[in-house]
């Protein structure tokens, strides 16, 4: 028995779950899965959980979901706003990610991969939603407003939220996403480019155009409401 063979059979020793043994046909699995015993979910890294999930372990899917769902939700909320479809979109993101786990090569981190799928799903959703403006329920507005603020302050906050999301809904999805990631989440252009799958120069142009459009629309709204703000510079102003 060769040294490599000894290593293989040691690796296949009983503590490795049978599902992994069953997956021995997939040579890629063998090279990807660390030869460690099962540990508690919190202690397992993403790569290890992915390997278990590819092997069909339901608890690994569960652990990956629990670990990342809050970040996905947060990003999705920023990208699409307080949309009632966010729960469905979150499911869709995880379905796509879990469905493509076997093809996940590990070039980028799992978090980045998840972010890319989230951006893609959000972009599709925004494209579909352009014909119907986002309706923010009063209940959600109350949830978002600070509970300890005065009624006047809460009303003002609600108005500002409404204005912001109405303006953002007028911006085209790709520009809007680049704008949110760059300006709101303060990511670097390179990071945004990796998430949206575009070049850095394209992302920079999208951000610039989105900023111009947002400022123009806000100025227009402000002027319409009669506050007499100065007219901002912009391509179309």
């Amino acid at each position: 028995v060769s040294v490599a063979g000894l290593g293989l059979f040691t690796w296949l020793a009983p503590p490795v779950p049978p599902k992994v043994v069953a997956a021995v046909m997939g040579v890629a699995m063998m090279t990807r899965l660390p030869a460690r015993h099962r540990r508690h979910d919190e202690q397992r890294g993403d790569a290890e959980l992915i390997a278990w999930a590819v092997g069909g372990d339901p608890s690994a899917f569960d652990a990956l979901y629990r670990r990342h769902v809050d970040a996905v939700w947060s990003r999705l909320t920023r990208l699409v706003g307080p949309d009632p479809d966010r729960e469905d979109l979150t499911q869709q993101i995880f379905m796509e990610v879990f469905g493509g786990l076997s093809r996940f090569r590990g070039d980028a981190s799992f978090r980045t991969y998840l972010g890319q799928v989230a951006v893609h799903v959000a972009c599709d959703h925004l494209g579909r939603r352009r014909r119907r403006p986002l309706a923010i329920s009063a209940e959600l507005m109350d949830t978002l407003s600070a509970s300890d603020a005065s009624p006047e302050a809460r009303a003002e906050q609600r108005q500002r939220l409404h204005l912001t999301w109405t303006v953002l809904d007028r911006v085209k999805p790709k520009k809007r996403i680049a704008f949110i990631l760059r300006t709101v989440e303060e990511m670097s252009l390179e990071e945004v480019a990796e998430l949206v799958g575009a070049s850095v120069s394209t992302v920079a142009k999208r951000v610039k155009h989105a900023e111009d459009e947002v400022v123009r629309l806000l100025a227009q709204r402000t002027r319409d409401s009669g506050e007499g703000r100065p007219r901002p510079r912009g391509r179309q102003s």
Partner: protein
Amino acid sequence: MSAGDRRKGADDAFRAGALESVKEAVRATDDSLGDVRRARIGARLAERLAVTNEKRTIGLFDWRGRARRAWLTAATAGAVALVAAGVAVWRGAAPSPATPQPASPFPAASRVGAGGPAATSARAEHIEVPAGTRVRARLGDRARTTLVGPAIIDVLTSTSDLIDVRLVSGTLLAEYDGRRGGLLRVRAPAATVEVVGTLFGVEAGVRGTAVSVAHGVVRVTRDAAARPILVGALQTLAADEAGPRPISAPMRDHLEAHQSEGEARGAHDSDGTRPDPEPPPTPRRKAGAASRHTKESALAQPPVVLAKIESRSPDRPPAPGLAAEPVPPSAASATGLTAGEGAGTPSGGATAAPPSEPPRADSGRPPAGAVPPERAAAAPSASQLYRAAETAMQRRDRAGARQHLARVVAEFPGDRLAEVARYELAQIALADGHRGAAARDLETVAAASRDPALRRAAAFARCRLDLGPGLSAARTAAGIRCLQNFRSANPGAAEDAEVLALLIAHASQQAQCGSVVRLADEYVRRYPAGAFAAEAARRKHTCARAPAP
């Protein structure tokens, strides 16, 4: 400075201000996911993944994939032969300490935890049986069980002295051979059943837990009562009833069908024997049983052996890795379960149903266990029912929402969405002023949910039920004790800031300045930006200024 420069400067200032305002507004929209919503999305995701998994399984064995199947078969055989040869060379003739487990889909019939020697295993096994499915399982080498889906069971311990299982929901029919000593313990919501040798059934559903006995005696310890109750042959005890009553005919049929299936299987065994709970055993049986035990202990079986799975849902194939067999006619006619009927609507009639509840499953039982295909196909899924409940809630139709949620809980007790539905039912009950019903639902979720965050949220909500204006001092004291227990059981929980605030408010009301100062200090130290931080500091200050008693 020219007018143009001034204009440009103003434009730049407005631009910066506008972008900053948008940034703040977008960040302010960042509402947290919340435990309930997280659990709800997770439950739906699990359901969708299960469906996807089933489709893949069907596709894999589709006739169109013959070439792929042939390739897979050849590759599998080659790999298995290679591995077997390698293991044989490497390990010689020594028996493998682990028995491979069948692969399972996620999450229709899942097994969690690695297998191991039966005699020493203390690892938990988790089995989920989908609706409309019955799984026969052997626990250790002495308990022969049938799980009627939807059902969830955790095997906590399986040793020669004790087989300890937790029936989360569903119906468990069991035949336990206790002639060699030892104990079978079934932990169900609100009751624990201990058996030393009998044929019995446990139903854990929305109406509580009920234990029915066909032969022998079991000891039932209810959570609500300190003293155990003995339930004898042909008796049923519901956890919320004072004493046993006669067993219902359908439940007796279930148990007899379970026993006759076991006997039929025993007759087909190669050694022709099976453990028989009926004393006294004949010498032939004794000898047979002894040889069987010897053989099984030599094989060192895993604690749980899923022997067979039967699926009656036309659209749900049996889980891969588990052999499917047709239901024997006798068992089918005796059981008479259809897809969607299960523990939530126990056909055994062992639990007391309030008059307002829907008719029992056995009132219109179809003949010979047949399921009308169109009925099974038309039955809404848990997700569809939950969506209907959400739609009703959006219309502020609480009655409609309650009805749909109750169906989720009753028809899909094993589904994770049922846990969220039960939590939502508690909220609706509370809104309707039914604190008792809310408390029961919350306690069930807090005790039995598989989602730790949901368990925690339910436990906290249960504590809150005992706090509020107009409640008696004893109840408030119970609520405060509940919160203190919650804190010690869940250190660093998401609800901790709120719990601390409640404790500070209560201590302040009771003028317990020592507690106020201690808790307020802890709050400010842990949550300096918390919503109650300023108030905590104020109350502490008030206490510090107050004269000592």
